[in-house]
């Protein structure tokens, strides 16, 4: 159960990483520099989580999925084939970040149930990171005080 959740987390995280990296490449507008760097922070952080997730899957005795076809099957993060406006990028990434938090919460519950404290600890760190990005994305999207 935990391994299946980690496979979903791996595929979703990969999709999230690809999207953030694409936004980093294609963002345009007056806030280009700031958003370019912000998206870079997000994709680098997401990328850093891919390898440990796959290794925890292996640690649990399962093989890690390693193809786009499998990722498409497993992921809960929809891809973006077009180039959105900068604000739409932020909105989309914010929605995907919330999805990642849900997946991570599911993984944390499974890890706790299966008494895998090491994996639970790793998941808790990921929850913390995505929680921080949630705050930053929301702050970018807030217009009332701008």
């Amino acid at each position: 159960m935990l391994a299946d959740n980690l496979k979903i987390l791996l595929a979703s995280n990969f999709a999230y990483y690809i999207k953030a990296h694409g936004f980093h490449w294609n963002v345009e507008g007056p806030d280009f520099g700031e958003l370019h760097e912000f998206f870079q922070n997000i994709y680098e952080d997401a990328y850093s989580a891919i390898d440990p997730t796959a290794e925890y899957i292996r640690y649990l005795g399962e093989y890690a999925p390693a193809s786009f076809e499998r990722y498409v099957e497993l992921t809960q993060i929809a891809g973006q084939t077009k180039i959105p406006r900068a604000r739409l990028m932020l909105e989309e990434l914010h929605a995907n970040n919330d999805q990642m938090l849900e997946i991570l919460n599911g993984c944390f519950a499974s890890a706790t149930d299966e008494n895998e404290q090491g994996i639970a600890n790793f998941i808790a760190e990921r929850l913390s990171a995505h929680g921080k990005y949630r705050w930053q994305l929301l702050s970018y999207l807030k217009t009332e005080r701008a």
Partner: protein
Amino acid sequence: MSNDIKQMLERLATVEGRLTPSGVKHGLNSQQREVPQLPALFKPKHIRALGSRTDPAHPMDGYMVGDSVQSRGTALEEAIAEIEEDMVSKVKKDLTQYLDHLEKKGRVSSELKNKARDAVERGEVEEGDEVEEDLSTVDKVLAGAKGFGKGFAKGIPAVGAAYQANDAINRAALGDTRGAMIAAAGAYPPLSFPSLAVQVARDKHNTGSFFPDDEQIANAAKGIPAPPSPAELQAAEWSKKAGINPNTLLPVKENAPVRTYTMENGTCLECYGDDQAGFEIRHAGRSLPTRFSNLDHADMAVKIFQKRREANQNQDYLEEK
């Protein structure tokens, strides 16, 4: 200035004063001879030139010196004349403002007509209700203003005068005494506007009230000829006699849009007008500011707007390919 030049000028002034005393008429043309004129350097020896003009023995009384004119009237008459002149200018200004107001009202009337038409189409108001009456009043005022303006411009005051009479009656009935009085001023071609304005100014000077009370208005309205019925037909007849195109005097009657355009989001744009008055595009009953000389231009503008709107919507997501 050296002393030599000064002495020369003094000698010249003396000679000029000797040569052109008040009685000298030779060397002048007939027009100059008619004007009693003193030498420019005339200086009375025994009476002060300033401060004693009421003295009948003043040698400058009744003579022109330089380009100034000595008044033959009393100081009181002069003051009254100044007040009258001032008031005439004020009345003229009021009339100009009133005509501008009518022009603006004419613009508003098209919006009112649109609203009324929409209300009738929705079944909220029946034909011939108060709204329709208001519209006919607005039409009459508009036609009166246009008729007056056109008639005045063409030198045919009768066309404008009759409409002004109609306007004056309407305004008196609505309680707009000020507007009625101004409209009445244009309703009497034999009575020139300045003389009427002077009379109004005198009334104000004497009574302290600029415009007459209701009774005076009612009396004035009695003397105004009855309005033609229907006004538009009468105006068209007069215009025909006067050689003026009636279409330029009458408000344009718009019943149905010439063309309608449906946007992608379901909203509807309507094109109103004709070749003579031009075309305009309306959205939800509101006229867009631009007018087009022909239907093709309006059609093209709507298509460009549609394309631009479509492009703006697609700006949210661009194709990567």
